């Protein structure tokens, strides 16, 4: 690979080189897959749908099915109404989903198709639900798209009982995370004996076992009755300001369900905060089993802290995970020196800057950056570790820095989607990965005579 990344930093305002984000519809598609029996539908050209499915399949290594309005030149001139109507008819006739979750694309948004009115005029088969979200690709990022789809679900599906009686449940929006994370959140909630409605829920959808049968609509996913019931819940916990808080606020606006936005619970501090919020809201105790895990995590960090202390890290990826990872590596005694997300939102910079207040070292921080920029930063201030998605591997290779893969997408490793990053258990796995990466590097760089068995 040629090194075409100069050390000298030059202001770039328009050109994006090697993005750390992608467009809204894929986030919407991922969110829709967390609804039971749902077929995501992309209202635009075929390519969009094909790319999103391919990208998700590469990350999860699972079949991802979605349909497309298959726009033609005609549709782009006269509007996509006919295409959407035909598509919906065909979808219910052939694929028979319980829910169709429509997302728009830059094309249909620009043409100005009014999806709401098209659906209103459509004869929805009995017992079926159509949800639609506006997800223009030229606004925000895939994280925005995820948030918009979940928000649309709340807006269009949630209901409140007439007697306004609470169901004593907690709504939980996990954000743009893997099925392994969702399982971990559920395990914690269940261990605490909390009744919950978690959405969207991609566990048992994108981590199904191989048993020789293929089910287009696997058993997982939040159901429509559950989604309706979210309006009666006691409170909503949104894990992640960027992917999850908007839908929680929508629920407050619509049904007065109180929202609590927390950081994605990665690492000790954020997991503590999550559990404390749960205790406060429900009056339930954290069981000994979970407490023990916290103790084990602290023990593990104590055993290994000398490996981490003072090591410089670059963290990049989606805003919620980057915020939590930054907090976690700080708690390990590491120095995050480059912190970057591709999703353009100044709130990200504010949140991270607050966390970094006690940092006595210089660091770079940006929202709306790209990997070229990160690479330039690293050239000016070398790091010991990269934390982020697969796309950082070229930087890692060129700068000879170990990369621990966390976030989305991970295209060149497997198993990640089954294991949590979230919770104490997730943190233990993260420590193992980070420690392993640093020590593998140390072993590689140590002369043969100096190699030791015990590290």
């Amino acid at each position, binding site marked *: 690979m*040629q090194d075409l990344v100069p050390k000298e930093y030059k202001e770039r305002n328009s050109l994006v080189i090697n993005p750390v984000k992608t467009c809204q519809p894929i986030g919407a598609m991922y969110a829709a897959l967390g609804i039971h029996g749902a077929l995501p539908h992309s209202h635009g050209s075929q390519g969009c749908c094909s790319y999103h499915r391919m990208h998700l399949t590469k990350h999860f290594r699972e079949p991802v099915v979605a349909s*497309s309005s298959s726009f033609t030149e005609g549709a782009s001139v006269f509007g996509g109404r006919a295409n959407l109507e035909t598509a919906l008819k065909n979808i219910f006739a052939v694929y028979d989903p319980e829910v169709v979750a429509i997302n728009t694309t830059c094309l249909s948004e620009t043409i100005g198709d009014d999806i709401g009115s098209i659906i209103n005029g459509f004869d929805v088969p009995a017992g079926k639900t159509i949800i639609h979200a506006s997800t223009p690709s030229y606004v925000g990022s895939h994280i925005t798209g995820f948030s918009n789809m979940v928000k649309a679900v709340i807006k269009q599906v949630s209901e409140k009982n007439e007697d306004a009686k609470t169901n004593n449940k907690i709504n939980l929006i996990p954000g743009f995370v893997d099925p392994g994370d969702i399982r971990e959140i559920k395990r914690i909630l269940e261990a605490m004996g909390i009744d919950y409605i978690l959405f969207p829920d991609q566990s048992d959808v994108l981590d199904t076992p191989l048993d020789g049968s293929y089910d287009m609509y696997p058993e997982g996913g939040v159901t429509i009755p559950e989604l309706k019931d979210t309006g009666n819940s006691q409170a909503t916990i949104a894990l992640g300001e960027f992917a999850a808080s908007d839908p929680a606020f929508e629920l407050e606006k619509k049904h007065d369900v109180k929202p609590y936005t927390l950081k994605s619970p990665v690492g000790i501090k954020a997991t503590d905060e999550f559990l404390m919020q749960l205790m406060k809201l429900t009056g339930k105790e954290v069981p000994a089993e979970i407490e023990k895990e916290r103790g084990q995590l602290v023990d593990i960090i104590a055993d290994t802290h000398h490996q981490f202390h003072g090591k410089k890290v670059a963290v990049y990826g989606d805003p919620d995970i980057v915020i939590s990872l930054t907090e976690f590596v700080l708690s390990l005694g590491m120095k995050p020196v480059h912190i970057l997300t591709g999703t353009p939102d100044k709130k990200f910079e504010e949140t991270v800057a607050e966390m970094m207040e006690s940092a006595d070292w210089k660091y770079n921080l940006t929202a709306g950056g790209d990997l070229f920029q990160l690479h330039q930063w690293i050239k000016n201030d070398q790091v010991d570790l990269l934390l982020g998605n697969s796309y950082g591997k070229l930087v890692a290779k060129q700068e000879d820095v170990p990369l621990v893969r966390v976030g989305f997408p991970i295209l060149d490793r497997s198993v990640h989607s089954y294991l949590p990053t979230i919770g104490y258990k997730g943190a233990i796995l993260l420590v193992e990965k980070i420690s392993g990466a640093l020590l593998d590097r140390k072993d590689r760089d140590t002369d043969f005579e100096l190699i030791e068995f015990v590290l």
Partner: protein
Amino acid sequence: MQNSSSSKALSEREDFIMTKGDNKENIKCDQQSLAGAVSQRACVYSGARVVLNPVKDAYHLVHGPIGCASYTWDIRGSLTSGADIFRSSFSTDLREKDIVFGGEAKLELVIEELMEAEQYKPEVIFIYSTCVVGVIGDDLKAAARKAEAKYGIRVIPVESSGFAGTKSKGYKAACEALLTLMSDFKAESIGVENKKMAVDSRNEIKALSQLNEDYSNLNTKEKIRILQKKLSQINSLQAGRAIEDFKNKKMKEQAENRRYIRKINLLGDYNLAGEGWIIENYLNDVGIELAARFTGDSSIEDIRKAPTADLNIVQCAGSMKYLAKRMKKKFEIPFLEISFLGLQDSLDSLRQIAQHLGDQIIINKVERLIARRLPDTEAKLRIYKNYLSGKKAAIYVGGAFKAISLVKQFNDLGIKTVMVGTQNGKESDYEKLKDLTDPGTIILDDANPSELEAFMREKGADVLVGGVKDRALAYKMGIAFFDHNHERKHPLVGFEGVVNLAEELDLTINSPIWKTIRSDIDG
């Protein structure tokens, strides 16, 4: 459709599916997918991107919202022997205000930033149009012309708005962009060269007019003759005739050279896992040089030189036959459709190329190459045939050319093809497939996952050959999978390729994992 899976298919889809041996004459294909279908197909942009992106030293700028660039970043897996700027993802990342006010201003800024970045020295920038750009009506041609004039480089728009047709249309858009690049060579008077030539001729005129020759010992008649000659030279330079003369002289030189060097272009190879290099090795072995590759491991310079070749050989006809036809018309370069996928096809292709060039030395060398490589390859294939014979395969790939060669290779290995489909096949391709397969084989165009699933189940396929989206489906059904798509990691062409194919099929079909799916604990 007379089979148990008819309930799974839309009635509108029936014409796109046939069973070998039934009464159906033709299959419907080359159509837009039905709205609402879970199609595996992509868009015009995707077609253009996969064909053009491997031009390794060009700058590939995606003009649109970020997604189009993100999903196609380094998607092809083309290997390069030199420049690798094509592996970087450049995007204008259009935002809402650009959609409202038009994206041309941002495009202009992006090109400016690209040109001002000292690490980059773009000689050629391809600007890919995307859906939204097509709708808001950005004038890419004007933007490109403006940038060319400003920076003295080549800026070539690729007309690839996603909605404007099928992937095949994207291939054509890419081929058009390549033709534009080639036209630089044949018509030196346009574009970038134009500037240089204009300066050259200006200097020449200046030199000529300032030339003080000694006329003292000439008679009047001779003096007039010389002065007239000088004047006509200046006139011809000024009228651009000198440019024409220069061009003609150069073309004449090329024509002279062509008689002695056997140079051919390789079309429709994308150097996946180094496949282009394998083909090039064979050709070099028999005394043929490659002028240009389209487009795996290709450079701008190669492509500009392509019009000097004696012959075009077309590997992936689906994507590049169009270019071959256009080059035949424009540059009078004949073309051969060949295939280095599969043993017999590889041998036939080598022989065809040699025959076409009509050079006995090359013909002899080809036979020597085959004699040298064939016994070993066949011996290896015999070993794998033991493990593969009697297995059943389902094929669903993008291009028909791949499907055809796979069916042939499977026949050689004793594997029965029970289902074969393509995303972009033409009627003639399906005719060929019909000829190659046994009665009962399902043949289908633009299938969706439920159709694939139903037919694989019905026909008891042991392995699916397909793209990345189908891999997970096959595995979920407990069926082996063979990657014949962009992401493949092993070359599948030539002598090496057929052995790799057999090895990989054995590896996946005979993996112990498929035996562990059912266990007594399931009851």
